[in-house]
């Protein structure tokens, strides 16, 4: 099965891995922060932020991709700013695909982390503060480690979602073999021609295998964390 892959398909596999990994890793700190804000603080506009985080789930991916194109394209307000200020270009680059994947996986990550935060006994944080830890230190040494199960679960969801992300990606960065062609965009092309099913299913099988490996790794890690965090 694997040796039947064309070099272009290999590139797509490689790129998909890169995109999904970058999306997961890159969005994690933001997701952790947002989840913490939503779970532990009350501020005006909190409901709005909460709703905003969920948007990528509700809005069809194609629309999300289109809105990304309008704002993060080189001529879009954010895109122009990023390019002029940091020299970062997203449009038609793999980084744009990673951004799309990150945004699509963001609500999943935030929710999982929030659930974990809600399950933390605030008494432990109080205990840490009586030991002299300020809010940041409490967060880093108590809250964050106890959030790990949620972070891990969120990461798995986001990674899987990133591997499967198609609509927003192709609308935002298109399908440039070797540059932005991920497995799903390659699969999509195959499904559009008569007789392409076999190739589409072959690529699908590959992403399933990758996701499975990620899942097994995360389960192993989560068992270790579970043992550590809950003393199980």
């Amino acid at each position, binding site marked *: 099965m694997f040796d039947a892959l064309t070099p272009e398909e290999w590139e797509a596999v490689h790129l998909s891995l890169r995109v999904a990994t970058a999306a997961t890793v890159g969005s994690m700190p933001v997701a952790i922060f947002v989840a913490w804000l939503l779970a532990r603080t009350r501020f005006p506009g909190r409901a709005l932020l909460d709703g905003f985080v969920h948007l990528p789930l509700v809005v069809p991916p194609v629309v999300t991709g289109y809105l990304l194109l309008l704002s993060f394209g080189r001529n879009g307000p954010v895109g122009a700013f990023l390019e002029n200020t940091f020299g970062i270009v997203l449009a038609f680059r793999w980084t744009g695909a990673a951004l799309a994947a990150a945004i699509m996986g963001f609500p999943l990550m935030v929710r999982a982390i929030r659930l974990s935060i809600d399950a933390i006994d605030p008494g*432990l944080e109080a205990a840490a503060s009586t*030991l002299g830890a*300020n*809010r940041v*230190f409490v967060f880093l040494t*108590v809250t964050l480690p*106890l959030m790990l199960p949620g972070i891990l679960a969120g990461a798995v969801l986001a990674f899987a979602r990133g591997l499967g992300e198609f609509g927003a990606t192709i609308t935002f960065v298109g399908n440039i073999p070797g540059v932005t062609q991920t497995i799903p965009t390659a699969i999509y092309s195959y499904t559009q021609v008569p007789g392409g099913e076999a190739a589409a299913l072959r690529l699908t099988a590959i992403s399933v295998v990758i996701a499975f490996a990620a899942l097994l790794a995360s389960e192993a890690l989560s068992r270790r964390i579970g043992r550590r*965090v*809950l*003393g199980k």
Partner: protein
Amino acid sequence: MTIRVDVIRQAGAFTLAAQFASEGRVTAFFGRSGAGKTTLVNLVAGLLHPDRGRITVDDETLVDTGRGIDLPAHRRRIGYVFQDSRLFPHLSVRSNLLYGRRMTPRVERWGSLEATADLLGIAHLLSRRPGALSGGERQRVALGRALLASPRLLLLDEPLAALDEARKADLLPYIERLRDEMRLPMVYVSHSIEEVARIADTMVVLADGRAVASGPVAEILARSDLRPFTGQAEASAVIVARIVAGGEPGVALVDHPAGRLSVPGLDLPAGRAVRLRIRARDVALAVGEPGLISIRNRLAATVTGLAAADPPMVEVRLDAGGDVVMASVTEGAVQALGLRPGLPVTALIKSAAFDRMSLGPLETDNPQASRLDT
């Protein structure tokens, strides 16, 4: 250390409205289950906030709603041993113990991991996770963790309730050393009068969220109007005496204005003042010379009053060299001995009855000690 509390806090059906000032080195919060002890401790720690009022420790204002001051918990440097141990489940026992240490300026640190762990009998548990500890083990780790943060004031919420007698007997002297040698001020929540009498010099009696009394332990325990709160069986006097040379090994001879006592289980140098709790139920009375009996500790005393207690017991108040001592005897005995105010009697106290839990050296600078020298 002076702790001044004047706070009101309402949560659900429970209102805490406590006002008191405690001058002691160790202040006990004493009261029935649900009286508000933990709530009050949380207010001092900064984990709960009063609706109105202020709390000061020495000259420092911890919270004052009037002036808008509310020092956050982590800046109070107040150690807290929780009623439920609250160990960090993701950290090993060692890391739990060392958690607060990093936050303490190096010069202000005292104690060491090894010494503390040894003393608490948890040295063999250092690499375990809290999930694999027994109830008592957890509580000891929690105590070690609070201590190793080198706090300026230590709050102990029923720290020994989960421990066996032997372990308690090991730990109490350590807590005393913290009090005397490290001069660590403490707030001690307990429902054991023995512990309170041994550890604390001041106590605050809480009932239904109100501080019904506060003051020196001896005074509170001797007050019969507080008996409903402090407990009938526990009527007791706390006297202060000074160790003199000449005891057999393991027994200290102590001098009290009303007589000399030999107290087993006290291992302190001559000249040191000690605090002895004498429970009314442990005191027998003799009129005239007693026969050949094994009770060798005798204090010359005069009956100052008789108060009915739970029938058929009568509480006989005595003046023994200026200290109040109480004896709990039956009505039958009152009649047989003809006890009445003014009668000179001998208070008989078994050496074995000095409660190990309530024997302890006095803080060297306690004002009560100086009375002995006059």
